[in-house]
């Protein structure tokens, strides 16, 4: 009886969590004339017209490519720069360790709206507006606090003896970072990578201000500014939403455990 109640509540929770996305999926399969009547809830003739429409003209493909490049390179740079810093903080003798971590944490609290206009002016003046690099530099920096916090706590868990042994065997600090510490913390690095990737894939405010054409426009901006001639093209928006959410759902299902480790590691161990 109590088990039954538990499973019923779990089903309700799942329905609440994925219901809106499910409705978007159903909407994306409806023909236009079906969108403006309810009931029925389900499409009578499920059709892929909206999916075909968004991929026509290559605009949407270009936008997806922009997002993929920006998010991947951001992840790469944030992990490279962040893991170096975390290694220094966790394994080397550093003065002001607590101060640096506190400084990094306080930066993660900065409201994006406070930094967006000066960054816009600078990026415009150095000619990087509407390029991938404008976003990559910005995202890398704003991912650093999270990266540094998670990785520092992961690196600290590695016994210092391993590091000393490597040094005694003649490794330079960099070699011991590269050959010993990095491989041993692969799970933590992977967890951080997923979080940074999702952050960059989803970010909106900087993308909205720093990009202006499809040369660098990312998915969230494209969806927010979805072109409609007379009325809002709900079917196409739904198809686009489902398409760009699919990779994230795959990430969540494949790496649920890592994501949770990253989320709680960043918040708790600090």
């Amino acid at each position: 009886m109590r088990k039954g109640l538990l499973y019923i509540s779990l089903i309700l929770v799942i329905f609440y969590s994925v219901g809106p996305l499910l409705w978007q999926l159903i909407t994306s399969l409806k023909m236009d004339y079906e969108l403006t009547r309810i009931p029925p809830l389900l499409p009578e003739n499920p059709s892929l017209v909206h999916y075909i429409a968004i991929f026509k003209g290559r605009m949407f493909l270009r936008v997806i490519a922009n997002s993929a490049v920006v998010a991947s390179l951001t992840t790469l740079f944030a992990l490279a720069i962040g893991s170096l810093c975390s290694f220094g903080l966790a394994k080397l003798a550093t003065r002001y360790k607590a101060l640096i971590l506190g400084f990094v944490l306080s930066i993660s609290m900065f409201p994006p709206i406070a930094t967006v206009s000066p960054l816009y002016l600078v990026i415009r003046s150095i000619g990087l507006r509407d390029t991938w690099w404008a976003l990559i530099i910005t995202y890398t920096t704003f991912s650093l606090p999270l990266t540094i916090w998670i990785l520092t706590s992961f690196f600290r868990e590695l016994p210092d003896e391993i590091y000393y042994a490597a040094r005694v065997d003649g490794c330079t600090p960099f070699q011991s970072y590269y050959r010993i510490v990095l491989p041993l913390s692969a799970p933590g690095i992977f967890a951080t990578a997923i979080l940074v990737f999702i952050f960059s894939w989803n970010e909106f405010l900087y993308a909205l201000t720093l990009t202006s054409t499809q040369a660098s426009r990312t998915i969230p901006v494209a969806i927010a500014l979805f072109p409609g001639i007379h009325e809002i093209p709900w079917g196409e928006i739904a198809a686009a939403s489902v398409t760009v959410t699919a990779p994230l759902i795959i990430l969540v299902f494949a790496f649920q455990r890592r994501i949770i480790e990253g989320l709680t590691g960043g918040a708790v161990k600090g």
Partner: protein
Amino acid sequence: MKRSEAATWFIAPALLLLAAVTIYPIIHVIYLSLHRKLLIFGISEFVGLQNFLFLLKDGRFWGALGNTAYFTALSVSGELILGLALALLMNKAFSGKGFVRAMVLIPWAIPTVVSAKMWEWMYNGDFGILNYLLGTKVNWLGDPFWALHAAIMMDVWKTTPFVAILLLAGLQLIPPDLYSAARIDGAGPFRLFRHVTLPLIKPMILIVLIFRSLDAFRVFDAVYVLTGGGPANTTETLSVYAYKVLFQTLQIGYGSALAVVVFICVGLIAIGFIGIMGRRVAYR
């Protein structure tokens, strides 16, 4: 090479980047807030605190501040209650835990812009599924009362997973012995929750409150895409107002003053929470 010298080389790149892309803009935005700067006319003159004085008399600013505070208070408390309920549920023993957790994480992973579009369609007054399921005829996003609450409901849906996951991690740290001991002493489920669970996850609740309050106070995407601040500015938050002034009417000086106010508010909230946490630690 001494270890401390090496450390500098490891840490420097991150700190330099942070200084250039976050600290410098903050200083610059404060500088801009003291100017009257209109990009289209090429006007830029020092006006001291005039922007901030103007702000005090700007009804739209006070409205946005009120909306932001209301949004933050309601959505954070909603997320906390729902997130705690979800965490307690997921902490029970059942099969398929990984599957349920992944399902619950989905709203967190969806881009805010996409969830705003999804909810905009569900809120649609004529063909929205919400009115259909509830049997109502509410114009959710066009009604001055409902629009802000519609944005809050969406935000609660989107961020409850984050709260639930953190609280679940807190719950899992509670030693099971404590529950058995309390049960032997005759405590029922309510007293177990009140006297064992709640005190032990209080630190985690505080952490969640900090993260979520700061995030909710900065809210931009959710509101900007869902309602654009309308109808009649009833959903306009500080970040949305600042964005419009900065990038739509291009009043860089006044917009920067608004941005500085958001920065100060967020700083005050953070300091407030750190004060509360510090005192808790001191009592222990």
